[in-house]
């Protein structure tokens, strides 16, 4: 029976299912086929693609790389975003300009901004090394060493997405209730203690939401890697989605890339669920 609640949920749910169902089923089906550049078709080759995934060290290495990459970038984004939000939280001179400014990087097209960053990090023509050389540093091998490339990707990701954290955390801060702060002030708590005892716990729910969403988005990291480093040097910055892209669209191994994707999807869902639960436990102190 159709109730009002169905009126709310069903349009979106059915729309999404309608759009996503075919691609999803297709992907599952194609992952059991040998669809490749030389032959498009849904033959059945059993789990061969999955066996291959299992043996594909390049894929598993990219997963490991992704976990450190996303952990580092998201943590940095969170810490910096939080610090920025705290800094412009209270009424201050020029606060508006700062706040608008801090939002802008998020609004830019990653593909295009990565190109700009690439020009900035260009080791002989870009300003990054030019400016550092004024301090007697460098030339830093931004994109041609494994560590440099990793750091470059982190820098660009932090630049692009810290605004996201900033936005959510600032919005959260502004809406915090006043009473706990009065209580803390009465208790004579200093700013540091107030932060840890009042602000941080109150911000826990919004922090979790922001962290999870950023983790989801960061795990798909692709544009930045594609433009900045093409996964290199060697495979030093290759992430799973970039690897799937190479297998799927560059090599055109449609079947195999579907198997890679589904493996990746399952792993991500499991990992993110666990992370969400852990975050809940650490930040809120209860189970999700």
């Amino acid at each position, binding site marked *: 029976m159709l109730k009002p609640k169905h009126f709310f949920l069903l349009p979106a749910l059915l729309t999404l299912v309608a759009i996503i169902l075919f691609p999803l089923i297709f992907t599952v089906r194609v992952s059991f086929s*040998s669809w*490749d*550049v*030389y032959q*498009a078709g849904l033959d059945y080759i059993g789990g061969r693609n999955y066996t291959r995934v299992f043996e594909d060290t*390049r894929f598993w290495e990219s997963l490991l790389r992704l976990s450190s990459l996303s952990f580092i970038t998201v943590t940095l984004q969170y810490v910096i975003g939080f610090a920025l939000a705290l800094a412009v939280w209270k009424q201050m001179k020029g606060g508006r300009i700062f706040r608008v400014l801090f939002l802008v990087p998020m609004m830019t097209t990653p593909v295009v901004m990565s190109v700009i960053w690439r020009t900035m990090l*260009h*080791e*002989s*023509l870009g300003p990054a*090394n030019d400016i550092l050389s004024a301090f007697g540093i460098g*030339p830093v*091998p*931004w*994109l*041609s060493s*494994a560590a440099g*490339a990793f750091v470059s990707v982190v820098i660009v990701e932090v630049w692009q997405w810290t605004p996201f954290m900033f936005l959510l955390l600032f919005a959260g801060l502004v809406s915090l209730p006043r009473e706990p702060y009065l209580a803390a002030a009465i208790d004579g708590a200093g700013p540091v203690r107030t932060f840890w005892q009042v602000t941080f716990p109150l911000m826990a729910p919004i922090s979790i939401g922001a962290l999870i969403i950023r983790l989801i988005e960061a795990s798909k990291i692709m544009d930045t890697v594609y433009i900045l*480093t*093409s*996964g*290199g*040097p*060697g*495979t*030093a910055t290759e992430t799973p989605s970039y690897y799937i892209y*190479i297998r799927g*669209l*560059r*090599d*055109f*191994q449609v079947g195999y890339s579907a198997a890679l994707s589904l493996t990746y999807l399952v792993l991500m869902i499991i990992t993110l669920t666990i992370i969400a639960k852990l975050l809940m436990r650490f930040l809120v102190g209860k189970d999700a």
Partner: protein
Amino acid sequence: MWRSEAFIMGKSRAVRSLYHDAIIQTWEETMKKQFTGSLSAIALAVTGVLTAPMAQAQDYSRFGIDSDLPGTCNFAATDAKDYSGRTLNIITHAIPVIGEPTALHAEQFAELTGAEVNVVHVPFGDLFQRIMIPFQSGQNAYDVLFYGSLWIGDFNRFLAPVPDAFLNSSGMSDVTDSFKGVATWNGQMIQYPMDGDRHYLKYRTDAFENAELQARFKDATGRDLAVPETWEEYNEVAAFFSGFDWDGDGEVNYGSAEVAKRDDLMFSAFISRAAPYAKHPDVTGGFFFDLETMEPLINTPGFVRGLELFVDAQKSFPPGGTNFGLGDEIFSFGGGQTLMSYSWDDAFIQAQQEDSRIRDMVGAAPLPGAREVWNRDSGQWDNFDEPSLAPYMTWGWSSAVSDMSEEKEMAFDYLCFFSNEANTFHDLQIGRFGVNPYRDSHFDSGFWQGLGWDASVADSYVKTLSEMELSENRVYDLRIPGVGQFMSSMANGVAEALAGQKSAQDALDDVAKEWAGIVDRIGEDRLRDAYANVVRLEDNEG
């Protein structure tokens, strides 16, 4: 005779801004005047008889050409066709390389024939999938395709053969044999040649001819400074010229700019480097594979040697050089940062731009060769007194018409128009267009001197290119199904070696393993059939 590119471009820009208004007024009149003429031309076109119509005193200079030249698909002949109300969809490379001439000639074609021509520009890295997805799913997306000729192994099933009328066209008969070979699959021409590409060595003549530097080089190495003839020499010269400001412009210079970024055509840089060591003039039956067994040869000593030298060359790269894409390489050499570079014409042409700081300070030479070449028949290194060269006819741009197209006739007309005599000569002059010599008439030093090049530069350029045409030891791309997989696997192995993650031998051993896997998946016989096409070209049987 030929004016400098900048002059012509300057003129064409001015003309362009004027002609837009003028054209609209005159167009209708022209249409009316030529109505009867057009009709007969259509009749001719429809019956498939493609002859140059009577030379009319028509002025086509508004299109940025000096004058219409005789030829099957010249402006007058195209003008005579009427495709109004019909649409041509074209996919091509990004602007400007190939993309700009595609769009330019599409505009002209639309104006001349009344067709609606849509052009989409795609960066190289994604061109393959943009063409392949519609092919595989049976979607008629594009009529005309511009792409890397190496993909013929994957695309051949989806392409329309070039009709006889076009095979006999004036432009086609002038195409060199090797580029006709590039366009041919199983004896049938299915690509429409419109570009000729190859790798060759570019170097700074001002450095090589500098007496002080020559002396210093001699002191340091005990050898006379000369344009390198082997890759060992290349590395040695490059290393010497790295890290100091030898051209006195205040910026530190380096020895070598190479395409070393994994997914950015680095595979062809590696093949250029490895070819002379791995391609033995007396050994037939396959360069990448043993045609009989379809065993990968990618980890044989010749390739390993090539990779070791590639790894070694990194010390002469400018900062960031190990992550250089083609664009960076062009900027680096064309901008005067490095002594040598080897890849397509772009860097050379960039250096020869009129406003370039190093104009006429560059020379072209064949790619270095090897004095030791691996002979896989005998399983040992053979010594050569004169370095053995193995010119790599690295993939050039090619064009084709989709077999699904419902406008094949118009599509071929467009391609024929694209490469008509006037257009080709116009396009060759503009470096950024990326259209490079591919017809016998293009190998003429006078033509390039007409662009304002020094005679010596033009001579070395033409000589280098035409010698490649004559070589009997050429290497072609791996034009077989799944070439993308093979090349990306190889590029990945090379990148790992370059990054020091693996030794050259280990990296290539792993590539060979992957290649064997790909052969298994795609099917040995299917690949052998395709590869035979390549081997025939390499063994000069094609």
